[in-house]
């Protein structure tokens, strides 16, 4: 459901402050309504080639078809109601520039962490992730390393050794 923060052309009467990033709840609802209706249409289209054998009481395509339709209808209703709404409006609270940066760095760190889990093992990947992200958010090198090491030890001892969960242990343990 990535709607993001498309550049906006606010409709005439909206109260828009001078900030760089403003979205009114009304605009957000129109966008999300249209987006969700599109998702519903995609679902309906994808059920087209679902085969059902003769005599099934509940063919596999029935539920996706019904739910896709309710999504389309409610998404469209949401967009239309919001479009025709003229009244006091709320603002979507977007972060400031620095906030976006922190959000993006966190997201990127998390993505890299997930990529590294299998090759490096859960313990080491978590160490790297914690140390990096804590350092980025906090700027305290020693503290971030300490927390990372503690997390790695807990994962290795508690989850891998004691609970015997088959977490990835990395390429060096093969």
């Amino acid at each position, binding site marked *: 459901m990535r709607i993001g923060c498309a550049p906006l052309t606010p409709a005439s009467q909206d109260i828009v402050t001078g900030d760089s990033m403003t979205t009114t709840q*009304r605009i*957000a*609802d129109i966008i999300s309504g249209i987006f969700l209706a599109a998702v519903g249409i995609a679902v309906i289209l994808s059920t087209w080639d679902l085969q059902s054998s003769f005599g*099934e009481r509940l063919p596999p395509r029935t539920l996706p078809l019904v*739910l896709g339709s309710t999504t389309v209808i409610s998404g469209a209703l949401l967009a239309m109601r919001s479009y025709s709404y003229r009244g006091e409006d709320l603002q*979507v609270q977007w972060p400031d520039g620095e906030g976006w940066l922190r959000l993006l760095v966190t997201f990127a760190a998390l993505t890299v962490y*997930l990529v590294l889990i299998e090759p490096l093992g*859960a313990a080491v990947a978590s160490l790297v992730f914690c140390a990096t992200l804590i350092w980025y958010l906090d700027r305290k090198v020693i503290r971030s390393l300490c927390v990372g090491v503690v997390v790695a030890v807990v994962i290795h001892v508690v989850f891998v050794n004691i609970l015997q969960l088959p977490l990835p242990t990395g390429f060096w343990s093969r």
Partner: protein
Amino acid sequence: MNFSWDLLIQGFGSALGPVNLFWALVGCLVGTLVGVLPGIGPSSAIAILLPLTTFLPPTPAIIMMAAIYYGAMYGGSTTAIVVNIPGEASSVPTAMDGYEMAKQGRAGPALAISAISSFVAGTLSLVGLTFFAPVLSNFALAFGPPEYFALMFMGLSLVISLSGKALLKGMIGASVGLLISLVGQNPLTGASRLTFGSEDLMAGVNFISVIIGLFALGEVFVNVEQKIALIVDKKKIEWMPTWADINQCWGAMLRSTGVGFFMGLLPGCAPAVTTFVAYDLEKRVSKHPERFGHGAIEGVAAPEGANNATCSGGFVPLFAFGLPTGPALAVLLGGFMMYGLQPGPLLFQQQPEFVWAVIASMYIGNAMCLILNLPLVGMWARIAIIPFPILGPLIVVFSVIGAYSIRFLMFDVWVALVFGVVGYLMRKFRFPMAPLVLASVLAQMLETALSQALVISRGSPFIFFTRPIACAFMILAFISIIRGFWVQIKYHRPEALEESDD
């Protein structure tokens, strides 16, 4: 299986013996721990420990495994309250108000009330189990697929109508939630659906990943952008509930016991539905429903009470018919089998001392869990005052381990990441989360029940209206939705544009 005081007292005598008492304590400890740790739930804990208990006689072994089961119910709320990671679907309603309380510096009272409510509801349900098991067990037999479908349909409608002013968004959430769980192979026919050509999606989307993503990761994203130092936004931190807090919750505890116990008797729709229904009921009977979602203490007491009541209620069909109502009880049934004990009416005649010792030990175990958990409250509540730059990454690590441990697939972790972004956007755009979560939890059971019901009725949907229990549920479901729309039309309120209370 008839009740007799002699047998119950004999049971207490046996359960209070040092050996049984010790293993009950071990079970409560392990259960609480297992409930708190991500990635390992009561069913896997019992399954792991099952082979290790072979050196024990059956009574202490079963006592310990039962204690793990209800002990986990005590521990399960901890992460939901303190860091907004509901480890299982049933703690989602707890997180909604519990985490709000934690942010207000009231993690202590939230944790304590959840332990107290668990104890009260668990014990009251045990009384029900002790005295009314034979009568109640017939209740479960009156439920066939049409009734289950109608019950789950009602649960969903109640939760959608709970989104109040954002009813359309609730409808969308529920539809999308159901669709998410339909992705992958259909368990009944094996046909793969909604995979859009992706092989990874064939495995399906697990609802635990969805929950972890929406709640834990989404919350981390929202917090990280604001450069907050602490998730607690008040200077004043309360460690324990006041008597006023506890008094405020008595009604919630008693009502949730009723809801939880009766729904616990039904196989297949266990805690996830009951906690949502109990939360919904509390919000409806409350004089200040607007406080719910903003740290209402009853909003913590109700789902936690219902959770434990469901857990005790589940022992009725297990003892009476050997019918497990959920995965953890199914593993416990495996434990019975391992010792050559066949649960069912005969068990009460042939092994009364065993059955009553286990039941008596559950009273003691519940008290033990309360005594164990209350002192721990202070320790858990301190987690909330860890600076966020450290806590945030830790929440992420535990979420990742939790998501990975569902099926030991990286795919589930990636799903959690995607839903973290979805959860972030839902918070920004004021979409309620509860309908999406409950729908994704129920989807598979819902489809199975619907399909079985239609087989019974040979394809006629009127089966949901010709059977009295199913019909009552369906009518309630429609009333709650229609009433929601009626309220909106009557007040001309722009639902979508107002604050949604999720």
